[in-house]
């Protein structure tokens, strides 16, 4: 008996899939994905149970068209929306949906984990980081802006949850 569940499914190769898709649309230059030889690492400076965690998403608080410019934005965790917007981004709109905030923005779960002492607290704002074609813009403008906002909120850790 051949049991297919015993065989591990392979992760989707998104870079290759994207390259073929845009090639089929007649784009002649493939996107150059970010690549870093040196990756920073820092151990925790205090226990997780004393750390404040900030959440960063690629979703948006406002509806956008694919052609609208995107900017860093932040929302109050005490005024969470029912869902975020992301029809301008590439994600699997056929297989799933964004109607349940908890499936992609873990603020409420983190609040529960703060209550039971797993983490210290949740930073007062969550941040919406725009996905940009320009890596320079992400590196030099948007990422420093999100970092600065996390620091303003005295966050110790950042949990980045891209759609």
């Amino acid at each position, binding site marked *: 008996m051949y049991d297919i569940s015993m065989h591990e*499914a*392979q992760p*989707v*190769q*998104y*870079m*290759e*899939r*994207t390259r*073929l*898709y*845009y090639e*089929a*649309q*007649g*784009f002649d230059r493939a996107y150059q*994905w*970010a*690549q*870093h030889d040196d*990756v*920073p*690492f*820092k*151990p*925790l400076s205090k226990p*997780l149970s004393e*750390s404040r965690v900030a959440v960063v998403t690629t979703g948006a608080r406002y509806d956008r068209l694919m*052609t*609208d*410019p*995107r900017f860093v934005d932040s929302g109050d965790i005490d005024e969470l929306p029912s869902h975020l917007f*992301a029809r301008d981004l590439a*994600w*699997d*709109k*056929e*297989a*799933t*949906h*964004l*109607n*349940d905030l*908890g*499936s*992609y923005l*873990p603020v409420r*779960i983190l609040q*529960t*984990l703060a209550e039971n002492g797993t*983490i210290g607290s949740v930073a007062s704002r969550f941040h919406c980081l725009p996905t*940009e074609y320009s890596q320079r*813009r992400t590196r030099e*403008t948007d990422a420093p802006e999100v970092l600065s906002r996390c620091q303003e909120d005295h966050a110790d850790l*950042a*949990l*980045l*949850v*891209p*759609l």
Partner: protein
Amino acid sequence: MILGSAIDIVERCGVPRFYFVDFPLGNPCGKPYDQEMQGSIVSKALSLFVSASEARTVVKDPNRWGSEEWRERYMEINPEDREKMLRQGEERRRKRQHLRDIGHTRKD
């Protein structure tokens, strides 16, 4: 730390810690309305803050989406759609050029 699903993109980029959830793009914290799964995924992801000792640490979540069709269907290209896709690409390039022409772009 990244909690996400596109492992090829994240590993190419290189990040300190990556908790990999092999789900369709859109629900990295767990299936919609499954609060138990979401709690489990986020808790395990957080533990990676403590357990990782070097950059590029990747841990895979054991949960499964339930079906596998989405893996093939995402950005699937059907041969009969080739002409349509070329037209869509042409339209997209035309719109982008128009937005650049009228200055509807980020200035920073």
